[in-house]
């Protein structure tokens, strides 16, 4: 039985949960000696007050859309893919190798190639835990956590031993070259005469991320495969009776998930024009918060990614002007995950009671 109307479930509960997280964050900011509204003003000015701010906000948003979709597709199959971080790391390696292997003549060729490279590597990194879960029953949460650490160690090893240019101390690859340079927002908007800051990193990947959201929606709600994934996520037994193979669903959902995380590399690696250590910067984990907040729906993911992009850029500004460390974002991220994910029922239970009381006046609820 569903007590809540659909809109309350999809919009009201997440909004209330976010409100609670923000109130707590505000109290923490107050404790740190800053007026929360002043902090909010600083963040809004820094993140949304200029095309430079927007350029960074949307750059981060692009990352979070990809990792958000990565977590979301896994959630649809009731899998908890905490390995987005490692998959995006490997995706970065794939995209970087593609960019380094060939002196690309033009970005229109380099971009699809890097996208495929990133997606393949990300998918491969997700495939191993998926296979282990499907065939050997090893818990995917633990294995994907382990794979995050293995990916980090592997990345240090490869960068230090093989990929960094001779004589360089910095563990990073050489620059990819002019043929792999992606058009920035300043280039794109310049075509139609809108001035946009050219020092902000937002680039064409943002539109690819939006396209990925559309494809995600089509896949999940308009194809047979998407139906099977959702059916499996709702009930493994029912899906089994309908002839849907659980092992196949786990593997397919995780491959798509890993590929989406890997696609992030076009933004985080290709747009920065070289592969550095820790290019993912925690975006894989933020994806979990984004997917939970966005209720695993592409529109929700876009909105949540935008919110986190704003928090990320605004938090950086706050660190610059108000002596509040960037870690504030990690705290907010933790609160959002806690309230929209784990403490969902804390908001839901009283809300259900209220709705019951409205529906049946005079009778006590549940």
């Amino acid at each position, binding site marked *: 039985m569903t007590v809540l109307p659909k809109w309350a479930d999809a919009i009201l509960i997440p909004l209330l949960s976010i409100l609670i997280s923000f109130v707590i964050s505000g109290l*923490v900011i107050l*404790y*740190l*000696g800053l007026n929360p509204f002043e902090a909010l003003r600083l963040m809004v000015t820094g993140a949304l007050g200029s095309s430079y701010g927007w350029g960074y906000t949307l750059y981060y948003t692009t990352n979070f859309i990809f990792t958000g979709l990565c977590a979301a597709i896994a959630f649809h199959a009731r899998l*908890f893919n*905490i390995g987005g971080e490692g998959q995006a790391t490997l995706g970065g390696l794939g995209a970087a190798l593609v960019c380094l292997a060939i002196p690309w003549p033009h970005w229109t060729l380099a971009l699809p190639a890097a996208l495929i490279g990133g997606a393949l590597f990300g998918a491969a990194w997700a495939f191993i835990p998926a296979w*282990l879960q499907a065939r*050997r*029953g*090893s*818990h995917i*949460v*633990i*294995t994907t*956590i*382990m*794979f995050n*650490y*293995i990916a980090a*160690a*592997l990345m*240090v*090893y490869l960068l230090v*031993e093989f990929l960094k240019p001779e004589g360089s101390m910095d563990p990073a690859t050489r620059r990819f070259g002019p043929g792999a340079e992606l058009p920035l927002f300043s280039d794109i908007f310049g075509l139609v005469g809108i001035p946009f800051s050219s020092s902000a990193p937002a680039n064409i990947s943002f539109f690819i991320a939006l396209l990925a959201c559309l494809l995600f929606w089509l896949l999940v709600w308009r194809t047979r495969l998407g139906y099977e994934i959702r059916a499996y996520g709702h009930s493994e037994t029912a899906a089994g009776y309908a002839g849907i193979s659980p092992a196949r669903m786990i593997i397919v959902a995780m491959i798509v998930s890993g590929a989406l995380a890997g696609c992030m590399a076009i933004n985080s690696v290709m747009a920065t024009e070289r592969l550095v250590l820790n290019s993912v910067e925690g975006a894989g*984990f933020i994806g*979990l918060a984004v997917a*939970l907040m966005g209720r695993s729906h592409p529109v929700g993911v876009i909105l949540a990614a935008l919110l986190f992009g704003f928090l990320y850029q605004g938090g950086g500004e706050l660190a610059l002007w108000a*002596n*509040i*460390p960037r*870690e*504030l*974002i*990690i*705290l*907010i*991220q*933790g*609160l959002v*995950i*806690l309230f929209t*994910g*784990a*403490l*969902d*029922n*804390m908001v839901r*239970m009283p809300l259900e009671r209220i709705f019951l009381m409205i529906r049946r006046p005079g009778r006590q609820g549940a």
Partner: protein
Amino acid sequence: MDFLTLLQVLDTTVRLATPLLFACLAGLVCERAGIFDIGLEGKMLASAFFSAAVAAISGSVWIGLLAGVTASMALAGVHGLASITFRGNQLISGVAINFLASGLTVLIAQDWFGQGGRTPSLSGGARFNEIKLPFADLLSGLPYIGQSYAELFSGHSILVYVGFLTVPLTWWVIFRTRFGLRLRAAGENPEAVDTAGVNVIRLRYTAIAICGLLCGLAGVYLATGLQAGFVKEMSSGRGFIALAALIFAKWRPWYALFSCLLFGFFQALSFRPDVVKAVTSLDVPGQLLDALPYILTVVILAGFVGKAIPPRAGGEPYVKEN
């Protein structure tokens, strides 16, 4: 490699295994009661910060210990609220706790001390200092046995000894007491425990409190024993290695001791690449040694070396029948 180098590596192993051991036993108690906890890392980190911070302010490591354990238990309480009372997803709650700890510790550290997210370094009574066991000096001249006694067994902080004693204690509580039997039953078949008239909710909260206490000790040792003060992200994945050790140990206390020592040994080796090179005459990359606990865990989980079967009702919130 001479005997003294071996002793040094083993000595480091013991030191590095101690926080793993506390966290691993914490996870053991919790998961045996049916609550998955991937927030060990966060609890450890919170405890490390609050113990170091309060020890730095008060000058007493014991007050620091109290503060660290309290912080860890408070986070454990959040986990209990989310996963027991509100029947939320235990994994998501654990992830959230890790982020909360990682963010809060740096924010508060910067606010209190203004040193870029660290505490001042601790010395004297604000740290757990090394304890010399009786006759250590006298026996250190004796080759092998005496040397081992002086170098390996003597000269650790009190928490190391407490950690190793917690192993038999945990074994005894889990396998030899009525409470332990009920705890294990709550993790395997909570309905049966309920039918017998025992309160599953209270049992699980008790387990989570013990988990918070032990994670707290892990963090306290990290910041006031192993190192002298808190630095950003100082737990550096130990909570997850402990989780790996727990699976490796198949949720059993004595095996946990063995697996924590093994993983501690790998960590000790990654500090001594020269030793690894001298013994194996291979140039083993340090990153491989870093990643070895994780790789081993995946291999174990894959069931290639024995099968690890978690408690049956693990991860499931218990809903009492009406």
